[in-house]
């Protein structure tokens, strides 16, 4: 077994929320250990005062003191996990400022999370897995070219994608809605193999990602089973040709959204969430269905509309759909409604998630929703920047997996 990745925890409230055990359990699942940096009371006083953020909660002062000790190299750690109570404004300020401070002043990967008493180890698993991957597999993540013939499979909540790559080219793709996880994966793989003109025997390495990664990883005997945060970041900068320097990757998925701040292809900070489906691709699917069009037609339709004409607040998918129905009943055009739906999803991701990562250009949108032109446009308007959508962006997880799996072709 490899050496455990040591994750320093900076937090306020998880033990009194009854979720500290969940944090420990999530770390244990990815062979990591969470620890509290050991510092003196004087370090707390000094660290807190020199940081300059005059918070009142002593546990937040302690978190600041610990962050200073980590950045100054007084404490050895491989990664940092920042956790505070959901809905605490004071803690949210500290969480954001500490994440930024650690990101800018050290090479430690850091993830922040706001929990409730309902947070489970399962919710935290992907984040912990990404943290440990960045700490443990920097060499693998440094890969910039695909070699040999590899297969990448992304078993997502809505769709399953497969990609065959050969000598740094995408030679086959397959896409199916996720129904039965294994059956959908097999179908997508068959499509990709057929398009590439190869058989399973020709495949030298396989990588899997997405919600079903463990199940399909076992089924296909994959060499690489990897969460989507690192895989998507890698795939995004690879396809966009921006493997060096900073970038921001946004993936609005069927079930949750990811916003990742990347440097040289390696995620630095990221958020993963979507408290409500109103901020996900699922809402756009429902919108398309209600408008009686295919999801692929939603983007072009939205580009013809004016979202501002339709009041829509889809913080909840149910109320969002209700606004949509009301707007249509009141005579709004389908174009305006489509544009409003795209703007609503983009705005929620902007407000809830993009505030927690440092937006650095280029902003790369990936995943199936990046093909919805209206959504990309709305996001660009909110961020006041041109959003890059690379080719094959809908296959991002599968491409990232195939790329990283090629590290196993020669047994790296």
């Amino acid at each position: 077994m490899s050496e455990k990745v040591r994750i320093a925890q900076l937090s306020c409230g998880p033990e009194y929320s009854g979720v500290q055990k969940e944090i420990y359990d999530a770390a244990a699942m990815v062979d990591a250990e969470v620890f509290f940096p050991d510092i003196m009371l004087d370090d707390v006083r000094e660290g807190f005062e020199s940081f300059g953020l005059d918070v009142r909660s002593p546990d937040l002062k302690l978190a600041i003191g610990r962050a200073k000790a980590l950045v100054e190299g007084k404490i050895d750690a491989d990664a940092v996990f920042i956790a505070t109570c959901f809905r605490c404004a004071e803690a949210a300020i500290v969480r954001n400022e500490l994440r930024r401070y650690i990101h800018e002043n050290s090479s430690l990967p850091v993830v922040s999370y706001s929990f409730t008493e309902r947070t489970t180890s399962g919710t935290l698993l992907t984040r912990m897995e990404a943290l440990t991957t960045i700490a443990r597999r920097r060499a693998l993540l440094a890969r910039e070219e695909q070699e040999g013939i590899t297969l990448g499979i992304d078993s997502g909540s809505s769709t399953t994608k497969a990609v065959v790559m050969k000598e740094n080219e995408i030679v086959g793709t397959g896409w199916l809605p996720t129904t039965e996880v294994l059956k959908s994966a097999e179908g997508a793989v068959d499509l990709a193999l057929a398009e590439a003109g190869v058989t399973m025997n020709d495949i030298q390495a396989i990588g899997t990602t997405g919600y079903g990664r463990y199940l399909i990883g076992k089924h296909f005997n994959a060499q690489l089973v990897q969460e989507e945060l690192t895989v998507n970041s890698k795939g995004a900068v690879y396809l966009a040709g921006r493997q060096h320097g900073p970038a921001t990757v946004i993936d609005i998925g069927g079930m949750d959204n990811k916003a990742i701040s990347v440097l040289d292809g390696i995620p630095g900070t990221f958020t993963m969430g979507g408290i409500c489906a109103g901020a996900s691709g699922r809402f756009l699917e429902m919108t398309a269905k209600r408008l009686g069009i295919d999801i692929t037609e939603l983007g072009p339709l939205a580009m013809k509309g004016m979202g501002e004409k339709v009041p829509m607040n889809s913080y909840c998918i149910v109320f969002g759909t209700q606004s949509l129905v009301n707007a249509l009943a009141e005579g709004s055009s389908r174009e305006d409604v489509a544009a409003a739906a795209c703007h609503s999803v983009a705005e929620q991701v902007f407000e809830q998630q993009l505030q927690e990562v440092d937006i650095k250009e280029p902003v790369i949108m990936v995943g199936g929703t990046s093909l919805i032109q209206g959504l990309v446009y709305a996001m660009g308007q909110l961020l006041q920047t041109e959003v890059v959508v690379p080719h094959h962006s809908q296959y991002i997880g599968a491409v990232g997996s195939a790329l990283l799996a090629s590290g196993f072709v020669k047994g790296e």
Partner: protein
Amino acid sequence: MVKVFIYPATSLILSDMVARFGHEPLGSAIGIRERIQTPGFESPPLQITPEEPKKGLKWAAVEVPSGVRGRMAVYGPLIEAAEAAIIVRNPDFAFGCMGCARTNELVLFHLRNRGFPVLELDYPTSDDEGAAFVAAIREFLEGLPKEASQ
């Protein structure tokens, strides 16, 4: 002897003073030790489960962060059982410290509104203030009834 809630609830010095003057101190040690779910007595404390923030709903609404409600599940019953309180304002970390400012505000609010005797004083910053601090606490504790009201 009356039950005296101490603030900060983790202060061993305050707890000791209350006990020395013949009363029962109510603080973190009491609340925490009732929740033993760890393998052994000296195991690190992980005694709070997700049930505590739900119990905390008695003192704080659902929109209040879970950490506040979890803490109130520990301190709320002690405040209800208390018959007097000593509040030390702006204490040094080493004197005793409670982690969450919002919980502290709520705890102090409840203590001030229970209608029982409360001594509020600032944490001393010099020897003279220290002597006056101890004298004030002694006087307050000596003035409390020797027999519990209930």
